[in-house]
Every structure is written in C-alpha cells, then in structure tokens.
C-alpha cells in the first residue's frame, strides 16, 4: 500500500501518511489478540483472561481517539486530495470499525463470564465446536483485512468480502441449530441464547472485516464498493 503514500515533494507528508497506516496495523494487531483471547476464553473460561480482555479494551478505545486526533491534524496541515484523501478517509473509517471489533471481543468475554459455573449440558460440546469454527473464520478475516493495510492484494480483499457472505450463511444455520436444540430441551435456553450472542458477535466481526477490505479497495483503486453493490 505504501506505493500510493510515497513520493511527495514534501517528504514529511509521506511519513505522516505512513503513520496513519501504522495506526491501523497496530490497532489491528491488538484487535486480533483480543478476538483470539475471547475465543480462548470461550473454549476454556478463565476469569483472568476475561479481565485482560476488558483491560485491553481501554487501549483499543485510546488508540481510536489518538487516530482521530492524528487524522484531524493531518487534514488541517495538508488538506489531502486525490489518493492521499482516500488514504485519510479509509484510515478514518477503518479505526471506527476496529474499535467496533474490540467491542465485540468484549461482548464475547462478557458472555463467557456469564457462563462460568453453569453446568455442562449435552448441547454444549457440539455447539461450542460449531462456534469455534465461526471464530476461526472471523480471526482469519480480520487478520487478512488488517494485513491489507500493510501489503495490499486485491484477491485477498475480495476473499475477505466473500468470507462475510459465508459467515452470514453459517450464522443463519447456527441459529437454526440452536432453535432446534431449544425445542429438544428447553432447560438449555439460557445457554442457547448466550451462544447466539457469541455467534452474532463473530458475524459482526467478519462484517467489520468486510468493511476494512472495502476501505482498502477504495484507498487503492478509488472504487466505492458499498454493501450489496458487488455481485460476483
């Protein structure tokens, strides 16, 4: 991605635009840790891990605020146009989505917190395996999407967009399976609802990853791929 950042006559401008990408990469790195830990806690509930996720969320929020300040400063100083303007818009929207992903990681942690101490039920193991599968897709999507801000690759960007379509289908299937479990055994309603919340968070994470991929396409290609417009 640095191709479209480098080469300004005033070289400091290159550095400041590069710094915006660095912010997305740093924030993205932290977000991937948050989701990974949330899934680890989901698999093996741990009060300590949940607390770490909640503590790191403060860092995610702080990074978003710092990114907004950097973006404001850059706009005020350079009045970016053309591809530079697209970099600024793309980063500005990306940090908002990354903060949203951070919120989802905390939501998953909170659900896990609720489940600590609840006795295992017969639906728990298969459902957890299914949701862990969704979790892997979410992690893969967000890692790829953040990586686009380091090394842009249009095939990867399009794969991330497609991943959300896949996730959307999987999420609907998961809901149907959970409803089926509830019909079989209504004593598991609380557990099923919590699992649905986790699945929903994972679906939202891949949606945010899709947004990041779309911003990277906008930044590099100048093409605005809004939801629903791209039909392969």
């Amino acid at each position, binding site marked *: 991605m640095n191709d479209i950042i480098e*080469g*300004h*006559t*005033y070289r400091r*401008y290159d550095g400041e635009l590069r710094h915006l990408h660095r912010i997305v990469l740093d924030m993205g790195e932290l977000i991937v840790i948050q989701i990974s830990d949330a899934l680890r806690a989901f698999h093996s509930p741990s009060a300590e891990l949940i607390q770490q996720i909640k503590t790191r969320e403060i860092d995610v929020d702080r990074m978003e605020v710092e990114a907004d300040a950097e973006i404001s400063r850059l706009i005020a100083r350079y*009045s*970016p*146009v*053309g*591809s*530079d*303007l*697209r970099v600024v818009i793309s980063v500005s929207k990306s940090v908002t989505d990354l903060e949203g992903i951070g919120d989802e990681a905390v939501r998953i942690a909170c659900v896990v917190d609720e489940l600590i101490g609840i006795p295992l039920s017969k639906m728990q193991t298969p459902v957890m395996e299914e949701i862990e599968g969704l979790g892997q897709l979410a992690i893969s999507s967000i890692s790829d999407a953040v990586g686009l801000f380091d090394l842009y690759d*249009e*095939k990867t960007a*399009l*794969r991330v*967009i*497609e991943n959300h379509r896949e996730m959307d289908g999987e999420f609907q299937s998961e809901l149907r399976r959970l409803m089926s479990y509830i019909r079989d055994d209504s004593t598991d309603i609380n557990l099923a609802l919590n699992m649905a919340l986790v699945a929903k968070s994972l679906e939202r994470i891949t949606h945010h990853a899709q947004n990041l991929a779309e911003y990277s*396409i906008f930044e590099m*290609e*100048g*093409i*605005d*791929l809004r939801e629903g*417009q*791209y*039909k*392969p």
Partner: protein
Amino acid sequence: MNSTSDEIHPEEPQPMTALRKKERGTNPISFGRDHRDTVGEALSEHARIQCRNVNVFYGNKRAILDINLDVARNEVIALIGPSGCGKSTFLRCLNRMNDTIPDCRVTGDILMDGAPIYGDSVDVVPLRAQVGMVFQKPNPFPKSIFENVAYGPRVHGLASSKSELGEFVEKSLRRAGLWEEVKDRLHQPGTGLSGGQQQRLCIARTIAVNPEVILMDEPCSALDPIATAKIEQLIDELRSDYTIAIVTHSMQQAARVSQRTAYFHMGHLIEVGETSQIFTQPRHQLTEDYITGRFG
C-alpha cells in the same frame, strides 16, 4: 444448464479488473505519465468559449500544443498546473492578450458564442471588454476609486450622462462587494486601498463594461486569507451572471471555487473533469502527482 471450465464461479473472488467494469467502467488512474492526449470531457454542450487545436508559439518554441477545450456558460473553470505549463498562456489567448507579446503566434480556432475572436476583422477593444481580465497583482489606475470604475463605461460610451455613469460605478462596486467600504471616499486614490480592496476594485472595473467572460490570472496570490475569502465569495456570486476562467496555484482554491478543473502539463491539456472528480479520483497519473504534491 451445462457448466464449462471457462465459466466464472460466483464463489471465487474476481480480479479487480472485473470489478472496475462492473462498478464504474474505469480505474481512477487509467492513464500513465507518458499519455499526452486529453483525458475527460473537455467539450461542453453549453459552451460560451470553444477552443479547437489551439497552439501558441513564442518564436520557434511551442508553448501550448493542440488544446481543445470548451468553457461553459455560468461556470467557473480552474486552470491548474506547474509553472511554465501553459495555463496563463492559454488564458491570455481567450481575450487576445498574447497579441501584445512580440514573436507570439496563436494558431487554431477560438470561438466566442460561435464567432471567431481571431482574425483581422475582429476589433480587440470590444473583445477585451466582452472578455475582461483580472491580474495577479492588483493594478488600479493612479486615479480615484470612482475614476477607476468609470473609465471603462466612459471609453466604451456606455453612459450618456454623469448620473448614469455614477449608477454604473455604484452598481459595479456593489457587485464587487466593495461599495459599503468605499462609498464615502470615492474620490480618494484607488491605490490607497488595501490589497484585497484593490483587487475587488479591479474586478469592479472589469464588471463595469458589462463583460460576458472574466479571466482571472492568480487573482489571490498577493492577498491574505480574509481578502482571498472575499474574492472567492465574489467569484461564487459572479458565476450567476458571468463565465469565469481562473488560473490558480492553490489547489484548495481551485477545489473551492470551480465547477470544472483543467490540468495542464508542459503545454499539454492533460485532464479535464468535474472539480470534485479531479480532486478525489483523478484519472491521469500526472494529475494525481501534481495535485498531491509529488512534483511541480
């Protein structure tokens, strides 16, 4: 339905070239640095000025090359480009100001409302009233504020009486947003005004002879931000009555005041387009390089 190996499978991500065709038909940067034909819509259905194959020579040196460009009615078109690219030379073609430069030769056709402005039978005096010009440095006559504005209508015989001349002066100063600031000192020297006021006085002087087109060559380069904002506001207001072509080195000014922007590079007209498009998604690499400060 039979499937073949050539079919595109919907589940596979498609390359960006396919997306381009689907979404917008063109990539923003579709033309490399070596491409010299004009990119974008240079012509207009509502043209007031039509330029066809315009070349300007200074002696043996060709300063601008085969320019084709329309300037539409009631539009502000910004001409941008690095120093020496030919934008001011092109601007001066539009009211034959280049005629005053020895060894300067203009070829091609420039039409104003369909009529050629070059040719032995064309009188440049009414042409320059019809196509007025505002220069980089405010250049009021060493006369009173009143006389600066009254000079044009008097020379062109536009006013039949002193009171009518006064009306011309007041109307022009009001239109230039200067009346309230100078109405009590009309007989003081124009050169005593501030730089921004002097520039608005020059605009009032241009307006006073009822032009149809106003050419502006870096009209704000010597002004502070407040005076610049007043001129830009004035340009915005004047657009309803006039066609305006402005040369500027300020990308922000071009982005603020114009509806269309034309980018010149080494005598070539590289790209023309809606100003919003030029400053967000230029299609030529040279335009992108220039507006983002990568050369020039």
